[in-house]
């Protein structure tokens, strides 16, 4: 008999395996490139527009353009997350994966961890790059804020979580739906459909909006948070609850269905 293998070693094995899978397909590089280049490009565009704007015309909040630009990367990282499981279910490779690692929740955790780590880094790079671009223009007009301003580093950092949140939600949805197109549709539905309800008349619009992912993300990033939504700390919890609940549902279902 072979000696028992410590849990930490087994966890490292599964993480290494999923990391190899992630970096050995082109879709990872494409989706990440889109996820990083698009928001930085949009921030550059916003900076150009702002620099030509007459006089004291400014964005509502100096930190929001950076976050809004990230929203354009949401779909790309969402696809990256969904693909982690949906391609394995689509090809049948999932059976090889689960035969090699019968503890399916370990596979779910490892996929969420490697994609989460990658998109966390990407999101923070985008958040700080966008911040730098927009503030460079705004500070020329004496309207910007610097990183040393109280609350600013935390807000930018929190805004950078958006891509991580969406990608790990995608991992969970890919595992639940098992189909690329279906998984992406579910992700788009969960992120954008509740936001539509935000246009309902007061007070219902805000009562719903404060639970939506994108409004929560704006709250945690804004220098001047909206008063009718949750406070930034609570909004951060709302933001993290979305992937947490999705992954919990995925963990519940993954051992109960045939592969």
């Amino acid at each position, binding site marked *: 008999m072979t000696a028992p293998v410590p849990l930490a*070693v087994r966890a490292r094995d599964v993480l290494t395996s999923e990391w190899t899978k992630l970096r050995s*397909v082109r879709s990872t590089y494409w989706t990440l490139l889109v996820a990083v280049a698009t928001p930085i490009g949009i921030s550059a565009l916003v900076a150009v527009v702002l620099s030509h704007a007459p006089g004291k015309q400014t964005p509502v909040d100096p930190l929001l353009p950076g976050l809004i630009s990230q929203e354009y990367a949401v779909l790309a990282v969402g696809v990256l997350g969904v693909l982690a499981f949906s391609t*394995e279910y689509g*090809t049948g490779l999932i059976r090889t*994966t*689960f035969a090699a690692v019968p503890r399916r929740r370990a596979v779910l955790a490892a996929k969420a961890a490697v994609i989460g780590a990658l998109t966390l880094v990407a999101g923070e790079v985008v958040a700080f790059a966008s911040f730098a671009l927009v503030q460079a223009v705004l500070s020329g007009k004496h309207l910007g804020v610097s990183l040393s301003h109280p609350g600013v580093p935390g807000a930018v950092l929190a805004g950078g979580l958006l891509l991580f949140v969406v990608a790990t939600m995608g991992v969970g949805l890919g595992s639940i739906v098992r189909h690329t197109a279906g998984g992406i549709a579910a992700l788009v539905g969960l992120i954008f459909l509740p936001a539509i309800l935000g246009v309902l008349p007061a007070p219902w619009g805000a009562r719903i909006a404060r639970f939506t992912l994108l409004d929560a993300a704006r709250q945690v990033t804004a220098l001047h948070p909206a008063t009718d939504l949750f406070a930034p700390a609570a909004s951060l919890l709302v933001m993290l609850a979305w992937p947490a609940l999705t992954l919990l549902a995925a963990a519940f279902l993954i051992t109960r269905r045939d592969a």
Partner: protein
Amino acid sequence: MIEVDQLVKRFGVVTAVDGLSFTVRPGHVTGFLGPNGAGKTTTMRVILGLDAPTSGTARVNEKSYAGLIRPLHQVGALLDASALHPGRTATAHLASIAQSNGIGRGRVAEMLRLTGLEAVANRRLKGFSLGMKQRLGIAVALLGDPPVLMFDEPVNGLDTEGIAWIRQFMRALAADGRTVLVSSHLMSEMAQTADRLIVIGRGRLIADTTTAQLLESSTRSDVLVRSPRAAELADLIKARGATVKPEEDGGLAVTGLDAPAIGDLAAEHGIAVHALIPRSPSLEEAYLDLTGESTDFRAATP
């Protein structure tokens, strides 16, 4: 060793496996035979812990698969050779699976060499032929050097050379003392590879036997007799209680009396015999006799 005990698997109203029990022992290639849709793949998925049984158990080396740590060291399986990410290279594919069970790079390279895939190791899998994918699937199954191996229809779509390679490979693995279970819907294929057979139909066990026994048990063996005085000889044989069926070319197909007895009988009466040929059915025929009742979908005879 693989032990399947009273296994039942239902998908909604369809019963894919219906109270199946068998044991696969080391040292042999065991053929797992049945018509398409008989439940072979489902049974293999249950053994690998991929499908949960409705009732009953499947155990590998006396353990349930779900409880295995680093299972690739215990069981190697090839279920579907096309189950690959087309954009990954052969090396990355093998390495990702190896890493999940703590198997090193050296073993990955060794398996690529063993299956003759070294030259294409860094090519993307979308360019691989079915034969190359089958080889890669076998490389995956052998990564952990496991004592138990399962192959689901491994020769499907292979050319003659590939089939010969796989056959020889499976026999070598069994000769090594490993447990080898190979499914197929083609009897002729199993006749050349397997020495033990588990035959199923509609999810039930039809036969658990050796290839030789299956042939003997068939009711189709007879003796072909040719004689210039065939009619006379036929009457003598019938008088001994055997059955005679005249063939179109004048020969007699005799069942119920063996060749030496027929020869002796003819000699007693001074009847010349020009041919005395014991005929056994092909394995294919023996298999059809067994499974004829249990095929889900049959083509009508024109």
